[in-house]
């Protein structure tokens, strides 16, 4: 009886699928993302005739993308059904998203993904987004140049990175006056919060606001490392790095003009693609550390279904399809986008395409989250206060000591949390 009911439900579900017309996915377009999602949408349409999956290209900078999404939410627009959302947003956007557990397949699928990310996407027992790919900050380094200048491996500390970058930069400048030691993300945006939290956490400076709600950023270790980062601007990093996002750093790196780069995993397959000046000449390592152990900022994107969607069940099905084993495998191989399904890290095809998935597995599972859960729904303001303060230090408008003291006061005003040592 149960079986009959189930198949009846399936038929009904298929019926609605066949009737439903259009699902629009708002997706990123960094690197190869857009091509990948368009191909995936086509595969879904081939398998489900009658459904049209549109892809809406959204801005590259996460801050801009959130702005666009909020405008759709404010208007309660049914224009977009599936949103690609950042790992830091489920808390802030909770009221606009549907609980995915009410749709078939999600309870089982959730078991396959990294538990930490599933937990991050769960608010009040509701699964608001299905993990799609995860990210962690990595150090990209030029193997050929390290060998040329007699270094036997990637730097373990920021001081070593400085020395190596300086040596290589001075040497390479003889033939290439546009060569730089180290490029990263220094623009005044969410990306700087990631880079910043990596510096601070790797120097035993805490995570801005601790998970139990204490503002810890104003401490000597944090101040020391942020001042050190500011000293890179104009020495081992171009002065314009304070205007760099991910793609600016990657463009400079991929044209062969830099020895080191801090970036997300997506730059790996692009760096090895045709036309890249560094294809086959680089590898990735964990980021260097200060006084403590290396820290990699936890990034990554999820798929969520809008509460204002006209076809939430079809939209949920599209999200489930896009986040499935087979689709994540294609994205991992073609785009070096880290899967969130644990079994894929043992898949031989995936490991062949991106060997660092295996060797840096611990970096991905132990990545440093930003304080988004504890500060929700004010995370955006917290992050903005942090990256503005760090940006002021990088551009020399303030020293880190003053900037962090003021940031502490700002964070107190925004969150109302007490201050303390990390």
């Amino acid at each position, binding site marked *: 009886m149960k079986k009959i009911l189930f198949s009846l439900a399936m038929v009904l579900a298929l019926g609605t699928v066949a009737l439903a017309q259009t699902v629009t996915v708002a997706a990123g377009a960094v690197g190869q993302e857009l091509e990948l999602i368009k191909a995936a949408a086509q595969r879904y349409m081939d398998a489900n005739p009658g459904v049209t999956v549109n892809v809406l290209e959204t801005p590259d*900078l996460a*801050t*801009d993308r*959130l*702005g666009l999404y*909020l*405008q759709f*939410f*404010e208007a309660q627009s049914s224009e977009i059904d599936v949103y690609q959302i950042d790992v830091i947003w489920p808390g802030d956007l909770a*009221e*606009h998203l549907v609980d995915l557990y009410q749709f078939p397949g999600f309870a089982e699928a959730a078991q396959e993904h990294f538990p930490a990310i599933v937990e991050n996407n769960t608010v009040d027992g509701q699964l608001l987004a299905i993990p799609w790919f995860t990210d962690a900050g990595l150090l990209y380094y030029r193997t050929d140049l390290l060998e040329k200048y007699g270094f036997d491996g990637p730097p373990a500390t920021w001081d070593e990175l400085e020395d190596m970058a300086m040596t290589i930069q001075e040497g390479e400048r003889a033939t290439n*006056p*546009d060569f*730089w030691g180290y490029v990263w993300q220094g*623009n*005044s*945006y969410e990306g700087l919060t990631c880079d910043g939290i990596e510096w601070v956490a790797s120097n035993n400076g805490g995570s801005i606001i601790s998970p139990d709600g204490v503002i810890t950023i104003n401490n000597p270790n944090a101040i020391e490392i942020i001042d050190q980062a500011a000293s890179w601007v*104009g020495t081992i990093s*171009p*002065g*314009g*790095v*304070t*205007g760099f996002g991910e793609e600016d750093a990657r*463009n*400079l790196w991929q*044209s062969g*003009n830099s020895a080191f780069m801090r970036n997300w995993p997506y730059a790996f397959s692009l760096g090895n693609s045709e036309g890249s000046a560094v294809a086959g000449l680089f590898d990735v390592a964990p980021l260097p550390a200060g006084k403590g152990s290396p820290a990699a900022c936890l990034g990554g994107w999820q798929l969520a279904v809008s509460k204002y969607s006209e076809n939430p069940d079809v939209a949920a099905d599209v999200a489930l399809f896009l986040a499935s084993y087979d689709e994540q495998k294609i994205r991992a191989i073609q785009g070096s986008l880290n899967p969130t399904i644990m079994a894929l890290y043992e898949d031989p095809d995936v490991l062949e395409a991106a060997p660092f998935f295996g060797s840096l597995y611990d970096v991905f599972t132990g990545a440093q989250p930003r304080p988004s859960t504890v500060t929700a*729904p004010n995370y*955006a*303001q917290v992050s*903005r206060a942090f990256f*503005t303060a760090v*940006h002021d230090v990088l*551009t020399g*408008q303030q020293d880190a000591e*003053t900037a962090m*003291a*003021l940031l502490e*006061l700002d964070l107190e*005003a925004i969150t109302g949390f007490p201050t303390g040592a990390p």
Partner: protein
Amino acid sequence: MAQTQRQTALTTTKPRAMSELARREERTALWLLLPSFVIILLIAIYPLGQVFYSSFTSARFASSEPTRFIGFENYRNLLSMTIRQLPPKLDEQGNPVITDGERQYETWVRILPRQPRRYSSVNEFNFFGRRYVLGATNAEFITAIWDTVVFSVVSVVLETIFGLIIALTLATKFIGRGVMRAAMLVPWAIITVVSARIWEWILAPTRLGFMNTFLSDIGIGDGNIGFFTNSSLQLPSMITMDVWKTTPFMALLLLAGLATIPKELYEAAEVDGASKIRQFFSVTLPLLAPTLAVALIFRTLDALRVFDVFQVVLGSQRYSMASFAQDMLIANRDVGLSSAASVVIFVLIFAFAIFYIRVLGVDSE
């Protein structure tokens, strides 16, 4: 002024003598005006009122949080300013610390008040040998107002000068004038977001950018000038982009103005033996003045609400008034504060408009 008074006098005495036909025509006119009035009400007055209203509330963007009425709180947070004197830095013996021949002062951090609102520094300045700090509760917004006004004044002045030169050139007869006139309009025709991107590439901070390559080739800079990240170059870069884009618009308006000046005046001036320069100042400029005034109003009001170049190129690194309001709304989700900022922009632009109308006497035309 006298003329307008006479006109009002006429209209107030007239109705009594008005015929039935005239009155009917007036009613028809009112009916015909009604649709445009309704449209203005819907698309201008209503949203404006909405912004005024929400500037007094704590509304959050895209949130179901209940909205509270908070009076002038948003305005206090935006506009509170104070000036405090900075005490000189003293060493252990109580003597002033002097580094490189300059007296050192304490930082503003402990000088500016923190309760009930926290002030931060907008600017420091010397006055009669004393050091002062200008503090504001929202230093970003005060800086944005100042930046926007500087941007508007400098870019409009430059656009007027260049526009006039181009218009005078294109008003003379030469071969290929039609092509030149069309070519002149190209920058104006490009969407600002696109032209801002083009300039972003031209002014890229490394030698991937044209300007850095060019400047370093002729020996200026080291090929790594951060046009958009160096705080003293940000405004000049913005002004350059705006002048490049909007000079054609200015030239076009002035060209139309030049076309209305009768040729006979120049012939008469010629006969009287006036030089070309004398002709420009005695004939061209006075007759062009009304057009110039209209063009100035257009451009100044437009420049004061500049948004796109700042948003595309500088993001949250540095704000214009409008990009600040947008960032408060979208990134900070603070509808109240953003609305208050919009009202301040509205009032400022209004003040500029009234100033122009009074000084240039545009309304008499």
